[in-house]
């Protein structure tokens, strides 16, 4: 058996399958690139700073010099209190969106699946809007209410879309997209209804949030979000091999010993949890979940053990850059980052739908 294993490793090493070494190289490279992108994004904003300010601010932060102490320069206050948490938040949101996209695409066996396109984000946004309409605060008895409402809305939308698009155990690509479009329209109508019966000053804030915008959170909130995202991503990573097998088709996956019903339910809940959290902090940011996994898949292949973390890192970089554009292009005013991602992702989506039919559909 031993010489056989040696022969086998010839194609295993040649890049035909995922090896530990390849995983390390790709993820290591992307981590370095992420660091570079974060440093770049920290420099730009309504006022731009040099790399020196960025580095000294980070050094202060790491040393534990709390922002607000008199020794800090204005530039460092902006950096520590506003820009640093905002850029990190953008990275986390982008990473989560890409991870949700990868999971949904494998689950629905559809490379065009995306929480935004399928109406999952709308469901989540409706949940959050309802909570805001009834004036339920951001926490109720220490429970994060908005993410919970977002989670409920996302889960409802996901289950609905799955039921609507499924016929005879299959998920035809076009019926899935069609069901997504219609569900999206209905949910958006409900959201519009809610904003229309709100007082104008409150509804304006809601509208800006709906368009997808990032804000600078406080450090405790950022920390909670970070732990939450890492935790959910970790569980998703553990399902990566099941995701691989699920792409063979549900019945084949079952014949290979995947408990498809259980795995599907877990994945629905996990993606809804992540979507609820993302939408409650950043509204509806579109197309990151579709464009990023797609591009990454073209570059590194489909094995979800690598695709999932790589897409998360690239998604983080993508949204950080998009947010930097949103912050600077009309400076000192800001545009919602959702506009930037939609303008970049929409045409890409059309390209896939219209010109890549032979491969993707």
């Amino acid at each position: 058996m031993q010489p056989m294993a040696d022969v086998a490793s010839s194609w295993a090493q040649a890049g035909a399958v995922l090896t530990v070494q390849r995983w390390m190289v790709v993820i290591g490279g992307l981590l370095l690139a992420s660091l570079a992108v974060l440093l770049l994004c920290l420099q730009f904003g309504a006022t731009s700073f040099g790399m020196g300010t960025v580095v000294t601010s980070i050094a202060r932060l790491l040393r534990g010099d709390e922002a607000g102490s008199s020794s800090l320069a204005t530039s460092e206050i902006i950096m520590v209190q506003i820009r640093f948490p905002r850029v990190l938040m953008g990275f986390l949101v982008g990473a989560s969106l890409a991870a949700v996209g990868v999971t949904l695409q494998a689950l629905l066996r559809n490379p065009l699946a995306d929480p935004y396109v399928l109406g999952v984000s709308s469901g989540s946004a409706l949940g959050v809007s309802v909570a805001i309409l009834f004036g339920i605060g951001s926490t109720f008895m220490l429970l994060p209410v908005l993410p919970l409402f977002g989670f409920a809305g996302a889960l409802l939308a996901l289950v609905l879309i799955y039921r609507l698009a499924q016929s005879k155990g299959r998920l035809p690509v076009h019926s899935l997209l069609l069901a997504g479009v219609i569900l999206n329209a209905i949910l958006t109508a409900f959201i519009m209804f809610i904003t229309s019966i709100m007082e104008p000053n409150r509804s304006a804030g809601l509208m800006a949030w709906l368009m997808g915008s990032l804000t600078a959170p406080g450090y405790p909130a950022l920390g909670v979000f970070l732990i939450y995202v890492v935790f959910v991503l970790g569980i998703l990573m553990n399902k990566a091999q099941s995701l691989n097998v699920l792409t063979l088709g549900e019945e084949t996956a079952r014949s290979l010993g995947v408990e498809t019903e259980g795995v599907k339910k877990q994945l629905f809940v996990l993606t809804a949890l992540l979507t609820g959290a993302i939408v409650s902090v950043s509204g509806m940011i579109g197309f990151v979940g579709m464009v990023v996994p797609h591009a990454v898949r073209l570059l590194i292949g489909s094995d979800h053990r690598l695709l999932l973390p790589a897409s998360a890192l690239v998604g983080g970089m993508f949204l950080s850059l998009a947010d930097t554009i949103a912050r600077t292009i009309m400076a000192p005013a800001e545009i919602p980052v959702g506009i930037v991602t939609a303008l970049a992702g929409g045409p890409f989506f059309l390209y896939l739908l219209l010109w890549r039919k032979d491969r993707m559909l």
Partner: protein
Amino acid sequence: MTTGQIEVTHSRLFAGSPAIEVLGLAFQYRTSEGRGRMWTLDHLSFHVDTGEILGIVGPNGSGKTSLLKVLSGLLPAGEGDVRLGGLSLRTRSQTDIARVVAVVPQEYAQVFPFTVAETVLMGRFPHRTTRWWSLGIGDETANDLACAHQSMVDTDVLSLADRLVSDLSGGERQRVMIARALAQEPKILLLDEPTAFLDINHQIEICSLIERLRAERRLTVVLVSHDLNVASQYCDRVLMLKDGALCRIGSPEETIRPDVLRMVYGCDVVVDAHPQTGRPRVTMPMTGVLQ
């Protein structure tokens, strides 16, 4: 029905423990109309010996694919029992079953760019040893790689190892799917229409591959086929289904006969002997217009 019972007794006497035993198996799909509908599979009893190739034929909607799904545990038996190597399917988990039975589905459409090697390695899923802290990276053991390698050698797809499955031709893809099934190291191979949608050269290729695998790996093979000639030429025995009931089971000479085919399919066909093997060969008769 009686034929099936006789066959079971026969096997006990001469062949020892059969690979597959089907005892009074009945199945119906659950529908909103409730009970009282016809059985999709109507109390079948038969067996398949180790190393045998059994062909399942019958008209559209006669329950061929449903039978295959029950044999692989994808659909639960409603009544009766299916035993693999003497053990009832009811007592086995899907992973347990996957270590014994491999299924090659009728069609396979992969929308994501997976390589051939990655796809074949997925066949090792029921044998994997998961370590949660590694997040599944590097879980493939030397044995997994060796199995996948041997499967690719046996099906002649090794040269395609780093190609994308979506770029392959129909015949190549079918061989990859068989390689993936072989990587499970099964004792029983179930194939649903393995030659459908293939050109004649690829049909021959797949059929001789199945014969060779049976000989080399002592696999028990059950295949569903539309093509009566494939069943006649390559199967040791043929099982005929009509409306979910077992109509006839036996050697091709016993089953592929004009009178049986008229009973099952309701039409007249020409059956003569294959010039090389002497096995029955089915051809369409001249139609009325031409006569």
